[in-house]
Each structure stands twice: as structure tokens, then as C-alpha cells.
């Protein structure tokens, strides 16, 4: 392997480590929310610093590779994608910390039935699965899997769009549940953002592997352009 290939391979491993950490943060935040486990929520908040450190380290590594190796073609695209994936992962890390922070600050736990009726748990699972699959797509440079993320993000969008209605029903059923219901709405909004960040990551994977730019395309157009 050339020195640049070694650097890129090391950077890829580092991004995957960050990915695994962010995924774990998201899972733990969910667990803390469902179990109302404040200790676990605090752990998520503490580990958020590690996510931030990863972001800084990856930014610095990319900067060094640009400066020292003058990458071109697929190497250049990989580095540009790595920078953006890094930012997207850090934001997902922020979302996990945001969910955990509520658990730490709240005095009332969630009604599991409400979590189900609003599809929040289903949405959460799908958001985590999407994040896992974007990682697999990145590791295997699998653009078919990356493209599948776009459609799956639509599922999260649908739950998010329906959220005002489902949350209103929870509030109507029990007015005292309003604070938690509004928090659930906030979590749904956050998970919708996880879907968006994952979609951005999928676009970066396709850009890196195939040199195709799918950003800012309508979903039908993205499908056509992506499959060219």
C-alpha cells in the first residue's frame, strides 16, 4: 500500500470507531429513556465528549492528509466525504446526548403505551438500523445499500409528519401527560434528524464511490440520477 492508502485506511477505521460509538450512544439514550435510567443517561452525556474528540481528531487527520498527500480522484472524494460524514456523525451524537439530557433532568418517566402509540419506539429502532446500515454501506462501499437509506428515511419522515396527531391523542387521553408528550414530540423530531443525517451520509458514500452528486435532488430525481 502507498503511504496515502495507509493514511486513508487508518482514517476509515477511525470513522468506523466513531460510528460504533455514536450508534452505542443512540442505543443507550433509548435504553435510558425507556427504562428511565438516569445513570445510563449520564453515561451518554459523559461519552459525548469522546464523540467530540473523534470529530476533532478526524478533522485534523483529514487536514494533514490534504496538506501532505495532495489526494486526487477517489482519494480526494473519500476525504471530502469523510469530513462531511464526520460532521453528520457528531450531530447524531449531539442528538443522543439531547435525548439523554431530558432523562437526567426529568422527574417523570414515560408511559410505554404512549411510546408505542406514537410509533416512537419503532421510529427509534428504524433510525438506529439506518445508522447501522449506512456504516455497513461505508465499510463495504455498497452503494445499493446506501441508496436503500433514502427510501427508509421516508418511513421516519412519515412518522414525524404524523406526530402532531399522535401526540395530541396522548395529551387528550391524559392531560397530565402533557410534559412527557411534548418531550416525545421533541424526540420524534430528533429522530427525524437522525434519518436526515443518515441520508446525507448515504449521499456522501455514493459521491465517494461513484462520483455522483445526489444532494438537493427530489427523491424521485435522486432515484433516477442515482441509478444512472
Amino acid at each position: 500500500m502507498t503511504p496515502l492508502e495507509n493514511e486513508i485506511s487508518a482514517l476509515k477505521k477511525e470513522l468506523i470507531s466513531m460510528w460504533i460509538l455514536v450508534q452505542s450512544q443512540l442505543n443507550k439514550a433509548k435504553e435510558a429513556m425507556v427504562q428511565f435510567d438516569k445513570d445510563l443517561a449520564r453515561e451518554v452525556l459523559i461519552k459525548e465528549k469522546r464523540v467530540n474528540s473523534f470529530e476533532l481528531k478526524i478533522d485534523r487527520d483529514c487536514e494533514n492528509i490534504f496538506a501532505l498527500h495532495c489526494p486526487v480522484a477517489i482519494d480526494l472524494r473519500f476525504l471530502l466525504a469523510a469530513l462531511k460524514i464526520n460532521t453528520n456523525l457528531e450531530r447524531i451524537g449531539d442528538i443522543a446526548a439531547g435525548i439523554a439530557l431530558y432523562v437526567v433532568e426529568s422527574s417523570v418517566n414515560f408511559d410505554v403505551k404512549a411510546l408505542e402509540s406514537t410509533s416512537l419506539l419503532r421510529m427509534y429502532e428504524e433510525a438506529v438500523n439506518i445508522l447501522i446500515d449506512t456504516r455497513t454501506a461505508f465499510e463495504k462501499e455498497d452503494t445499493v445499500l446506501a441508496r436503500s437509506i433514502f427510501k427508509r428515511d421516508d418511513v421516519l419522515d412519515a412518522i414525524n409528519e404524523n406526530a402532531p396527531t399522535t401526540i395530541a391523542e396522548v395529551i387528550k387521553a391524559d392531560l397530565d401527560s402533557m410534559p412527557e408528550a411534548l418531550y416525545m414530540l421533541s424526540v420524534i423530531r430528533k429522530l427525524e434528524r437522525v434519518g436526515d443525517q443518515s441520508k446525507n451520509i448515504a449521499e456522501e458514500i455514493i459521491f465517494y464511490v461513484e462520483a455522483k452528486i445526489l444532494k438537493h435532488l427530489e427523491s424521485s430525481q435522486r432515484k433516477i440520477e442515482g441509478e444512472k
Partner: protein
Amino acid sequence: MEHTVISASKFNAWFGDNHVVKDVSIGIEKNQVIAVMGPSGCGKTTFLRCINRMHELIPGATGKGSLKLYDDEIYTMNPIYVRYKIGMVFQRPNPFPNLSIYDNVVAGYKLNGLKVAKADQDNIVQKSLTSAALWNEVKDSLHKKGTFLSGGQQQRLCIARAIAMEPEVILFDEPTSALDPISTSSVEQLFHELKENYTLIIVTHNMQQAARVSDKTAFFYMGELVEFDDTKQMFTAPKDTRTQNYITGRFS
């Protein structure tokens, strides 16, 4: 086409039985900087030397196919005239060691027996040295020998010598490989200025230089023109795997 200065169609070149340029077809537009790159022995310099009929100066070297300057077949033109219209600058600066800076610039006229009035010669010298970004540095020492100059200045003197003949195209064969970074930078800056009046074709092993200075890049491999595209496209998303492997250093 008016804007195509050099065009090749299924052009081939040989050294004896060695087929070094294979079926090359390309269209080079006016006032562009073209970088030609590829591994050693890929035929890029041979192709360059065919464009101004220098290839045939080597015993046993031949060319076949269409190679045109505008609408004229280069291989049916007078080779001396071809070299007026298509100048060349080489890897190592090669000013005539016994001639002054002034005489180096007008050497093309003198060596070909072309009579030029003294006032016109003065004009040619000043204009060519100015175009080669050398006038201010040498205007007070025009009658010193060319070899008195630094390497970078000597290379710019060679460029001035090529410009003096008012060519359409200037060919550069690794023009900065013998220069230090500062001289390289000044020659690269010159490319940007020269392209306003000339078409430049540059063979280079320095890929970053190709990326910095050229509008389009041609990649040669084993005598074939593998890819010819906008430089931005070539260095971000080349279409051919061989190009990608070469520019990313994964060539085996």
C-alpha cells in the same frame, strides 16, 4: 473547426518496429493549456515530438495517420514551417551558449536566414522577452551570454526564443523538471499568461503541475490515449480505472 488548432485522427508512431503511439485521436482547442501525462515509455513525448515533426529526425522513426494544424496535414507541410508555427521548449534550458540573450531570442530568424531589420529585431526581442516575463530582469544585460542567467531565467529565455517566431502552438517537454520550486512557479505563472495568445501542450510527470496549470489533461498509457478530459474532471472523477490508478499512485 476554427477553434481546433491541433487535431489527430488515428495517428500512430513507430521507432523502427516499436509501435509507440497507437491510434491516437484528439482535438486541441485554441488558447488552452493541455497537460499530457503518463508513465515513462507511454508515448507522450513521442506524440509531442510528432506534432512539430521532430520525431522523424531520429533514424527509423516514422508516423502515420492524420495530424493537423488547423486544416493542414502536418506531415505534408514543410517541416521548417511546421516548427515556426509549433515551437518547442525542452526539459533542460538550452540557450545557445555562445550567443547573447538578444541573439538567442532572434536565433530562429538568423539560423533560417530570415532577414529582419535591426529596429524590428529590437521589437521582437523586447516583445518576446516581455511575453516570457524576462524583460525587466535582463533589459540591461541583453548582450551578455544566455548562459549567464539562472536556470529558471534560461528556461524563460528559451520560451522567449520560441515566442519570437510567433507560433500558434508551443510544446513543452517537462519544462520545469530541472528547475527549483521558485523558478517552477514563475514558469507556471507564465503558462497562464501565454495561453491568451498561444496554445500550450505540456508533457509533465508532475501531476500537481498538470492539475495547477492545465485546462485539459490527456493520459497516455502503453501508446494509447486512455482519457482526455477537463483537468477538473480528470483529477476528481476520472472515467477510466487506469487513469485513476495512475493519478492516485496505485499503478503497478
